[in-house]
């Protein structure tokens, strides 16, 4: 090798080495490749990914090999006289046809995996997934007994996001209520959205499906291993797009049945409560709990406000009941005050509105019963 060539090698080697060592150091602690995940489809996709990557690597080595050979041996400084050839129909045909054949060898496995992904037949259960700005709602359909439905919100506290507290292990990938599915079961997912487009993505379950308002998309998964799988919304959906994670808890069938039974009992209980009339004390007790869980973050422990307006002495909470109920159920569009009507049951809504009207020095003395909320929602 000439001096020039050696110098060039050294120059080129620098960045390559930096990158490679970065990748190696990175790979030890960080994931650098697609995961095979916990489903057969996921493994098929992984194999497809590795196949194409492999073919590309081989072609890349060929192309870059020829190129760097020229760079090293066909330099003017070595006193070479340039060749003058500039076309060859045979060569052009060869490098049109050969890549085409290689593409066919890729298309075959790709097609079969795709057909597999599109096979929704024989699902053993359905879950309806609805994207909201910025949370997910899960509904278990087709079950005997009560339908089960709940929202799943980001659980990471603001203090971690704004760096006033240390971040937990599952920072931004933790929710208040995970979706639970049984292992080795073909679960059909019906994906839609309530406002803008979202996308439900759990890499290890090999599912990414757009949630589109007005349309219901299908997808399915069959997890072959129990465990907790985490994902995120993949389609830009507004301000808190980065803060609507997905957690799927894959459990044994027995555990699943227990969980579902408990959820159904809970739902039945709420249903019974809906028909009931509560006393002021009952409403206040329940209302306090709901307030602390769902409103305190913005309205403050003493109703003093914060991100949200003050509840203590608020003209709304001390004014006409209908207007107050309206804000609770429908929210204030364009502000952080969301529509809680679709997110909590009527009992909780009745309780928390009653609580706001009779706590923090607000002394309205009036009560809201679940049936009032129900009627208000009906219009």
């Amino acid at each position: 090798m000439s001096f020039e060539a050696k110098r060039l090698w050294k120059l080129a080697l620098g960045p390559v080495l930096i990158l490679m060592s970065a990748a190696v150091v990175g790979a030890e602690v960080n994931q650098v490749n697609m995961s095979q995940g916990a489903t057969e489809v996921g493994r098929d996709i992984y194999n497809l990914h590795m196949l194409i990557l492999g073919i590309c690597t081989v072609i890349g080595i060929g192309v870059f090999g020829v190129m760097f050979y020229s760079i090293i041996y066909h330099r003017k400084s070595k006193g070479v006289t340039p060749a003058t050839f500039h076309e060859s129909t045979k060569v052009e045909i060869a490098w049109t046809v050969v890549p085409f054949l290689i593409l066919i060898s890729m298309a075959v496995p790709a097609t079969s995996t795709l057909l597999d992904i599109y096979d929704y037949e024989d699902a053993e259960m359905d879950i309806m997934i609805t994207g909201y700005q910025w949370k997910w709602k899960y509904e278990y359909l087709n079950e005997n007994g009560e339908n089960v439905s709940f929202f799943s919100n980001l659980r990471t506290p603001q203090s971690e996001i704004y760096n006033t507290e240390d971040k937990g292990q599952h920072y931004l990938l933790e929710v208040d209520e995970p979706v639970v599915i049984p292992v080795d079961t073909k679960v059909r997912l019906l994906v839609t959205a309530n406002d803008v487009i979202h996308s439900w993505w759990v890499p290890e379950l090999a599912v990414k499906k757009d949630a589109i308002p007005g349309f219901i998309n299908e997808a399915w998964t069959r997890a072959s291993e129990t465990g907790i799988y985490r994902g995120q919304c993949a389609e830009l959906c507004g301000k808190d797009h980065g803060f609507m994670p997905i957690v799927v808890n894959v459990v044994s069938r027995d555990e699943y049945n227990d969980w579902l039974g408990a959820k159904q009992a809970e739902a039945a209980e709420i249903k019974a409560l809906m028909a009931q009339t509560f006393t002021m004390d009952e409403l206040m007790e329940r209302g306090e709990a709901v307030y602390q869980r769902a409103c305190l973050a913005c309205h403050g422990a003493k109703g003093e406000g914060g991100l949200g307006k003050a509840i203590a002495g608020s003209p709304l909470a001390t004014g006409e009941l209908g207007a107050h109920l309206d804000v609770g159920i429908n929210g204030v569009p364009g502000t952080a005050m969301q529509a809680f009507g679709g997110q909590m049951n009527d009992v909780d809504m009745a309780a928390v509105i009653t609580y706001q009207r009779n706590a923090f020095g607000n002394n309205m003395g009036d009560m809201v019963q679940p049936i009032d909320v129900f009627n208000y929602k009906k219009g």
Partner: protein
Amino acid sequence: MGDHHHGPAKGLSRWLFTTNHKDIGTMYLWFSFAMFILGGFFAMVIRAELFQPGMQLVEPAFFNQMTTLHGLVMVFGAIMPSFVGLANWLIPMMIGAPDMALPRMNNWSFWILPPTFLLLASTLFMEGGAPAFGWTFYAPLSTTYAPPSVTFFIFSVHVLGLSSIMGSINIIATVMNMRAPGMTYMKMPLFVWTWLITAFLLVAVMPVLAGAVTMMLMDIHFGTSFFSAAGGGDPVLFQHVFWFFGHPEVYIIILPAFGVVSQIIPAFSRKPLFGYDSMVYATASIAFLSFIVWAHHMYTVGMPVAGELFFMYATMLIAVPTGVKVFNWVTTMWRGALTFETPMLFCIGFLVLFTIGGFTGLMLSIAPSDFQYHDSYFVVAHFHYVMVAGAVFSMSAAVYYWLPKWCGKMYNEAMGKTHFWISFIGFNLTFFPQHFVGLAGMPRRIPDYALQFADFNMMSSIGAFIYGASQILFLYNVIATIVAGKPVSDDKVWEGAEGLEWTVPTPAPYHTFETPPRIDPDHVHS
């Protein structure tokens, strides 16, 4: 000399009223560089916020405004105008024409750009903030849920489209009508060919984009429901219309870059371009295919499987003509007599990195795998390998290559090479790790991320600052050359350069080819 040989007018009016293709080219180039700096600034805000997990500098809403404006400014403000500037400077000189065919329209198509970008940037200060729905502005986030500034955004897009269409018509008219006698189509330099095809693409798809934003406008202000499911419309329709524009758009960005590289690699290989004819046919096939692959951006919207298969096969096919191009460039270098001045370094950088971007493109075309790649950082890595290393690297190469001809002075070679190496390292440090985090599950367009992505994101941010800083060196080098570069007087600045633009004096006079040059009929294309 006849008295019609006037030079440029003096003062500001020279630039405001000019119809000279060189002046207009210069303005386009400076404007696009200004936009490159502005878009780069937005990118630095993004990378600074993503330096560490947690929210540090900006709020999520503002972060989304940054990603949106970064994409819009880079695509429509930096890359596209830069190649129009290059076309203005070079096409007349390459085909032996005295100027562009429609010089007054040329003036207009430039001058409507700066006010438009001023308007777009001013949305940052409006109530509700700038557009925050991504450069792909999917409805209904960009309609029902958009900030009020969306109306100004729609207006800007209309004007940008107008400017592009006027520029393209001008290029088509020039190339079809103003070639010097003997400059047959198959003798035209490849840069002219790629631009001719690009201009047709632009004329075909810009109206589609205009249609998309007009439907948005109607939905927002006039009660229609094109994209609103509640009124019987279809949000997915928006994506079809957008990508019918959007995919050809990415080739609008890259074809002129292919042209540049096809001029420069032969020059520094001292050997004619290999497979000129097949390069022309490959460009045309890419342009054709680019119209029938748009839904590869939409594999996850829930298309029927037959649609999915069609778009997958068509997209895979694009790899064939793209491969032909790469093979031809490498074969051009083969057994040449290579030297490695800055333009050649940038072209080699282009070749290596664009090929990597093409490989990831092929991976993305495989629909089942795309379910895992889509909307992750893997896609971000892919399109920066093709757009930055493709378009921006080739643009840098073009500036270093033709600058001496334009201003008659030589840039500082050592500084140019330094610019290349810092860019190359910075670029790879920024975008290579993004493949990893994407595969590991990091979605794009998020202002904050889970802890397992932290290391690579920090690496990415450091790389971005390095890449950003290297552009200041570029700016300095160009200004220093214009102000105080070493004069060059050879017509043919580079030993291996071929083409009519190297037959005019250096620096290129204000008017060239007022009488058509004689083209040697036996000479192989430049």
